[in-house]
């Protein structure tokens, strides 16, 4: 193992939620806004790794998103196992998806790592009437100790901010201990487009 490995611990964050609540769009939005200059229509599957500086120390985060695999239900416990944070996404324009989000939160609280930091992400706020203020959702988040973010993957509003703020809320030193269940990569890459067309590095500094 390299010395880099010892100083930087990569932390796993999973994105959960119903199909078509916009999980993949959130990731794509971050990668487009932050990592790609031209918005060419050649985006393949992407996953993101980034590092956030907290107290002058880098915090390496890898976001796991298995959008499209929602129906492989039996895989989900493995998927969130070893994660240090989970972002549960729902679609504000579909009441049903909030119910599913609640079920996710309950499952995580019951079965996942007890120290898991959970965030509720109210996505597609561009579709929401301005007067509505997500009171019910905020109350639910308060009661359950969740962070809450409002995003629009379509307009880009709040997306990068969410990932950065959420990362800052993650405990810095826990990654390895919790992650030991899974496998460590020795090399780090920041963002990789699956079709291999582009590989750029960027660090979000805060």
């Amino acid at each position, binding site marked *: 193992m390299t010395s880099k490995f010892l100083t930087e611990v990569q932390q796993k964050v999973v994105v959960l939620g119903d199909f*078509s609540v916009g999980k993949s769009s959130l990731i*794509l939005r971050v990668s487009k806004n932050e990592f790609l200059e031209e918005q060419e*229509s050649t985006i393949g*599957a992407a996953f993101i790794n980034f590092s956030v500086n907290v107290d002058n120390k880098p915090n390496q985060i890898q976001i796991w998103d298995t959008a*499209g695999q929602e129906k492989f239900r*039996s895989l989900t*416990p*493995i998927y969130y196992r070893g994660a240090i944070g989970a972002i549960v996404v729902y679609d504000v324009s579909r009441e049903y998806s909030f119910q599913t989000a609640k079920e996710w939160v309950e499952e995580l609280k019951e079965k996942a790592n007890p120290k898991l930091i959970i965030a509720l992400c109210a996505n597609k706020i561009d579709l929401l009437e301005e007067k509505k203020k997500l009171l019910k959702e905020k109350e639910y988040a308060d009661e359950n100790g969740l962070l809450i973010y409002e995003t629009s993957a379509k307009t880009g509003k709040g997306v990068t901010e969410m990932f950065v703020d959420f990362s800052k809320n993650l405990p810095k030193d826990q990654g390895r201990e919790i992650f030991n269940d*899974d496998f460590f990569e020795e090399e780090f890459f920041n963002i990789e487009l699956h*079709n291999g067309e582009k590989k750029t590095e960027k660090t979000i500094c805060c």
Partner: protein
Amino acid sequence: MNNREKEEEKEENQNTQQESKVQIEKSEWMSLIMKKHPDVLQLHETTLPFSNLTSFSTHIPSGKTEIKERIGGGMLIKLIMEYLHQNNLSKAAENLSNESNVSREKHYHAIDVLTLLLQMSITDIDNLWDVNFSKCVDINLDEIDEVVFFEERKTSLIIEEDDENLIDDIPLWDEPPDSKSNIIYVPQTTEEYKKIHAATLNKLIEKLTEPEEMDSKFIPIFFMTYQSFTPPGKLLYKLFTRYTVPNSLEKNFENKEEFEKYKKKIKFRTLNILKTWLDTHFSDFNQGLLEELNEFFKTTKGTDQRIFKDIKKLIDFKINNFHQSKSAIEIPPEPKVPKNIFNKNLSLFDIDELEIARQITLIDFEIFSQIKPAELLNCAWSKPKLKHRAKNVLELIERFNEMSQWVATKIIQRERVRDRVKILTKFIMIANHLFKLNNFNSLISIMSGINSSAVHRLKFTFEELAPKNTEIINNFKQLLSGEGSYKKYRKHLHQIEPPCVPYLGVYLTDITFIEDGNPDYVNENLINFSKRRLVYDVIEEIQKFQNVFYNLHPVHQIAVFLNKFPRIEKKKLYQISQEREPRGAKKNEIKF
């Protein structure tokens, strides 16, 4: 039972046997089937009323006030009952009658005008298109009439129309010449041929059937992905139209000779493309489309009869060889069959792990190899509206979930640690064989059973596992980890030699990202062909694996065992798991 009764029964049996030899009329045969299979009947009933709406509304336009006034609730029920009767669904009609207290008109002289009309229209339904068709033949077709003919039949060709297809459809021959508003190319690199970035459907079909060379992948990409922007019926219709070069174009040519030359080229190319389509994606053609094709050959006169013949031959060949292209050359390895294979109480422990893995793989591959490109377009598997298109994808996922739940159930059901270790070991060995057989779909399924919440928490069970088996589990965990979008697994997959059943989920994620990350249309109305090129790459990899078959012997008795997976529901299973090894329990409190 006395002898006479036996005798009678025998006679009856013979009678029925004789009957079955007699050719049964189609209508009777249908009702027999319906009786035997209530589920088919139900399906038939639910969909029938929708299939022939056109004819009904031709006779009885709903907008007319006098008709509105005459059709009360009772009348509607009568109409529906009549309809059901006409289609041999008298039982359903009877139920309807009992529930609504409306009786069916049985005598023609007492019949309502509307009911009569309906009966007439029903008999017309089957002939409706034929009527139009014979009209065309009477007028002695010239090519312009063919266009009219296809225009009229257009509605019957286009079966499913998605919202996305509602984009303005200009008739093919009215499409203006190439410009930025109907076709955009990928900026030219060093490559010789042009690559289309985005274009209208008409332009794509033009390029498909033009002598001008496009990049070599254009045609395969088009046929693999076109169902994401247009249904097969519409494409067929467009190709017919393309074939029918209108004479009005002659004015664009120097002389008649030049025009005839052009016409010939287009016709030839179009037929060739049609042939390619039939050859490479025959399953796109349902019975209706094949009939349309037949009509086309019948009614089209000209010099292309020989190519028609070729195409018809190809169709015949495809129909007859549809189910038999899997003959292996080498003799498959001898299956490892247990001695008590015919025993009713055959258990998992009787069967060799390798053979279990083989039989699992044969069943998996059978489903996997059936997956059609259309199942993977537009994320059909996760959209309620398009689910019907993704039959095999959904079946494979269902099997995946059931199998892993079955694995977890089997382990949790054992009360004692040592029994759990025994069966866990069995599954690890099966998993190991699945790995060697390159069946990653079921390998991940079994691994997720072993790693499910209910099993994963059984600390004492895993402690008792042989170190070698723990190591196998850990190796698989690493290889199959979702980290870096399944980086390790992908790398491994590209190194193996097929046959293989890849893990479907990775492809579904890739396609989802491509779908969500790229718009379907560029500049509002141009089909984003670059996006389809990305989707093609994913599906092409899947097809590569679909084309190499496993050379293994199916063993029915074992396959039956691995086709349904008795299992306990997730929550209940977790509860039992907590009883087996309570949270924080000490070693001496556990049953070993």
